[in-house]
């Protein structure tokens, strides 16, 4: 906010004609929409944007994407889809603008081939895990909701084993998608239908736990009582030198940065922080739908992130695990339970 004393001083020092015109606009100060304000910034979050860092063109830099969003009238631009839901921009922005949140709304205004094709790829390659994974349904107080990405890399079975060993009263039910991919593509109708299905499923339970920070965030935003699985894990003796990668949604949207470190310390691990950690973490590239829009660049983001580490990486997200070839907390604990 601009200091009211500054405004008074401005008015006092201004010629009468300008003063009269000023009176009309001062109440509107700072009220422009976020896309406009972002577009007018010189890109002060460029240094933290993982997509820019991978593609190395201003076109996908945060404020230029906002420009392209602002310019999207009859059609929109491909770069509007080249974004991750990591909110690195928001974290660095004094106006707290999330470029991806705003671009998502732009995407929703257009029926594009980019979104349609990405959705097809997601339904074919990611959702197949929901259909093919064999599960043994079980009753319990809280629902274990693995999420599509957990099913991709074998983490589902391991998590069930760990939850059993920890004697958690958990249920396994139908495997569903939280709808995040549709949400990120701006396909809001499809998202609504996916999340409504999830709401119907979870209504039978006291709450939900998931390995996937993205699922947890989406469910929470939709009014579902959801928690990340890390909140119910117990420390076991592990030891050794490790680095923790903060999944961006876990750190920035779920505000969880200390618990994993505390857990690692209790497990006797020496934690070596990488460049970009905690709230200043760096996306792994596999968040959101970027991997289905620009797979090669998603791999570059993943490699860039891997290069920040010198020690074995531990994380708490199935997407980050795959992207960074990391070990998940569930695996780390499960091996020694």
């Amino acid at each position, binding site marked *: 906010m601009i200091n009211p004393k500054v405004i008074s*001083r401005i008015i006092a*020092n201004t010629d009468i004609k300008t003063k009269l015109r000023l009176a009309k606009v001062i109440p*509107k*100060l700072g009220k*422009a929409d976020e896309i406009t304000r972002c577009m007018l*910034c010189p890109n002060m979050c460029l240094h933290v944007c993982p997509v820019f860092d991978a593609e190395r063109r*201003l076109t996908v830099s945060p404020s230029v994407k906002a420009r392209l969003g602002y310019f999207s009238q009859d059609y929109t631009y*491909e770069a509007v889809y080249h974004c991750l839901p990591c909110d690195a921009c928001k974290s660095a922005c004094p106006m707290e603008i999330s470029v991806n949140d705003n671009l998502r709304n732009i995407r929703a205004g257009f029926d594009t081939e980019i979104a349609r094709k990405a959705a097809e790829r997601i339904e074919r390659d990611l959702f197949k895990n929901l259909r093919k994974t064999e599960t043994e349904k079980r009753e319990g107080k809280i629902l274990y909701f693995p999420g599509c990405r957990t099913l991709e890399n074998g983490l589902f079975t391991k998590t069930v084993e760990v939850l059993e060993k920890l004697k958690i009263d958990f249920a396994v039910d139908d495997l569903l998608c939280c709808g995040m991919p549709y949400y990120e593509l701006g396909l809001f109708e499809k998202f609504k239908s996916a999340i409504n299905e999830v709401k119907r499923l979870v209504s039978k339970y006291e709450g939900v736990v998931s390995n996937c920070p993205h699922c947890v965030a989406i469910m929470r935003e939709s009014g579902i009582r959801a928690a990340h699985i890390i909140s119910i894990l117990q420390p076991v003796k592990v030891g050794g030198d490790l680095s923790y990668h903060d999944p961006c949604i876990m750190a920035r949207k779920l505000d969880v940065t200390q618990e994993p470190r505390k857990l690692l310390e209790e497990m006797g691990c020496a934690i070596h922080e990488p460049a970009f950690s905690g709230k200043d973490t760096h996306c792994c590239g596999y968040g959101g739908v970027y991997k289905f829009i620009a797979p090669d660049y998603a791999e570059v983001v993943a490699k860039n992130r891997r290069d920040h580490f010198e020690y074995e990486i531990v994380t708490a997200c199935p997407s980050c695990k795959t992207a960074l070839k990391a070990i998940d907390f569930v695996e780390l604990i499960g091996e020694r339970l």
Partner: protein
Amino acid sequence: MIEKAVEELITVGIKISTAEEDKIAYCKDFNPLHLHKLLKRETPALPDAVAFPKSTEEVSIVLRTANAYGIPVYIFGGASGVIDAATPYEGGIALSTLLLKDIEINAENMMVKAGAGVVGGRLEKILNHRGFTLRHSPQSLYCSTVGGWVATAASGQFSTGYGNIEDLIVSLTAVLPDGEIVTERVTPRRAGPDLKKLFVGSEGLLGVVTEVIMKIFELPEESLTLSVEYNTMGEAVKDAKALMSLKPALMRIFDDEESLRYFDTEKFSLIAVFEGKGAGTKADMAKKIVRGNITEGYAEKWLDKRFNVSDISRIVPLGFIFDTIEVACFWSDAEKLYHEVIKAIRSVEGTITASAHASHFYESGLCFYFTFAGFPVNIEEYYREVWRRAIETSLKNGGNITHHHGIGRLRKGWLSSEIGGYITILRDLKSVLDRRNILNRGVMFD
């Protein structure tokens, strides 16, 4: 011509884009007038193509090809320059340096080699992680590039203690307009002509800087601040001059208007940072030297907000125009220059604020950084008039035309007043090195 050049470049494997979205991305720098065009969904200019060379050799190929066809080339890093230098008014090729992104830290010799396209904020973060710092910290640190720093002769917030970019460069590699690659033996210092300095502040007229080796410093363990209040700019300037004997890492003076913005006081304020070994002793001595009223917390408040430029986004959509004008002067001219330039800016109808801080200090003088905002009926006329009056007033009162933002197109009318007879040498150099005038055409002179 451009089609043939693009085809040739693609054939040899250079990444080239003619996509509309890339052209829009490379349509301008950060000169404030451009923002009003964007608000109308207009672009100040559009390149015909954008080239993304990924090595010095590829930059050389792009320039050789452009030269062969006489195609204008505009060089882009982070496009955060404010002097309308990169805007591709004649189409042609926008050459992005962003794929020149390698970083190599030489801890033993306290240097870092960085590609021209490395973004400052990321480089600083990586260095900090290893216990080092560049201590080159322009307000654009997060969005400007290493190559851009050299091309504009940039200066950072810690320049008083550590020097400007020209003091931090150990060596550089550049590509001349005809494609020739020039580099030198890397050494801490040499006698004889230091021709790499030709590229410092050359704004892309003479070549494309592709790689820079810079000094790095250990992250200071100790850092102490000083905050002082004064009734006048003159009193603050006198103390700043006295403090130079202690070589602060950072020092700034804010006038009453800027003090109100940052510290909620209408006094003039001085802040200083002393860091490294002996910082405590220096800070204690500084407190004994200054004659103003020592206060607390101003330095910390400013350090916390120093990269916040969000006011731009808040006021521009309503039809305000703003800009900053930085000029250097000797101590003897400082107080008068400050008052006269503020008066000159305020004399233009439509001005709603004119303020200044002194941002960089030398043994012989300082840089004043004026900020103005206007709410005029005709934005462009108002803007040109403020610039005309401010620069002419600066020149008349012992100031120069730029300290670190550069010349570009914005200030080229005053270049001969600044560099006198050297302008002939600059023109000669340009005509020898860039016979077909392909690089950043229209920048500095027509």
